[in-house]
């Protein structure tokens, strides 16, 4: 089992304190602005986790409901983003586990003659790809396990520190670093030989 990181980066910004206070007070105006502000980032994180846009949108809503429930647990001493992402992550994992159990059950039923419907979704990465290089990268991202996609997103898109990523992923810093390396290697392999196109 991975070691839980204990030393997180502490921030002295008043913003995290403001967020903690607003959450404790259930300040609906402030919380509404936060939902709007973090919507894209949360959705993107959940898309990276689940590879499904619709599911990610449902989970965004569930994440905020969970944030309201656990508002008292956020003390504002650490940055808000890792806390938010870790809540979203737990929800995504719970959902994927339930889905796996359901799929497993359906497979068992299939053995008894029940037809299993094929997944009717297109990869959101592939949908966003605009060039041949992007399509190759989309395929590589789609093939990566969510933990590697998560590590890449949190490091290079969210620009979280390794300690913060470790906090979100409940993994050691060295594990996070390896996940980033592995993810990057996959993307490099997908790009190898292609041309840069944005």
């Amino acid at each position, binding site marked *: 089992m991975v070691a839980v990181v204990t030393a997180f980066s502490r921030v002295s910004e008043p913003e995290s304190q403001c967020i903690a206070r607003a959450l404790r007070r259930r300040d609906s105006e402030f919380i509404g602005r936060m939902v709007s502000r973090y919507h894209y980032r949360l959705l993107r994180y959940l*898309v990276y986790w689940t590879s499904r846009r619709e599911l990610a949108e449902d989970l965004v809503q569930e994440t905020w409901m969970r944030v309201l429930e656990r508002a008292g647990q956020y003390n504002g001493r650490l940055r808000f983003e890792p806390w938010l992402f870790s809540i979203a992550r737990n929800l995504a994992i719970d959902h994927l586990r339930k889905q796996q159990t359901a799929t497993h059950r359906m497979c068992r039923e299939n053995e008894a003659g029940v037809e299993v419907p094929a997944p009717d979704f297109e990869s959101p990465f592939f949908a966003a790809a605009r060039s041949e290089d992007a399509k190759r990268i989309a395929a590589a991202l789609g093939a990566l396990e969510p933990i590697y996609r998560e590590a890449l997103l949190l490091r290079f898109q969210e620009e979280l520190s390794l300690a913060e990523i470790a906090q979100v992923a409940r993994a050691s810093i060295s594990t996070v670093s390896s996940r980033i390396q592995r993810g990057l290697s996959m993307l490099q392999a997908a790009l190898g030989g292609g041309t840069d196109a944005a």
Partner: protein
Amino acid sequence: MPLENHEKARFLLHRALVEGISLEERQWLEAHVRECAECGRYADLSARAVRALDWFALELDPAAALRVENLVRSRAEETRSAETRAKSLWIGTAAAIFLTFAGSAVMWRPLAWLAGQWNLPSPVWQIGFAAFWWLPSLLLAFLPLFRKRLLGDDSDSNGETV
């Protein structure tokens, strides 16, 4: 060029991307990458791989975003008012309990005197006091707290759906 230099360069390239490297290491790396075409390609590929993540921008549905925002706002308001109600109930209960015991302290002596006048044995009037003074007061004090459970009323639930 020794093989370990290439390995060191790749190691530093990865570290530079993931956690950052010292100025001295950066200078060494830049010098090496300038000289070594293979490591230069690797550095370029690494940078492109990171930039490639920007290609997957999601298109936001403003209506969906607004729906979530409104839902969360209203849930926050519901939760706040439910918490305010719960707080008032606790304060009311605490006040009722305090008044019960304060009233008991005041009434104890007069009742003991009255029981003496009527020649009632102590256990009898004390049980009567508990049954007709403490018990109703305490029941009334705690009743609001357990109202939802007793009546099965979930109309003001504060968000237990997740």
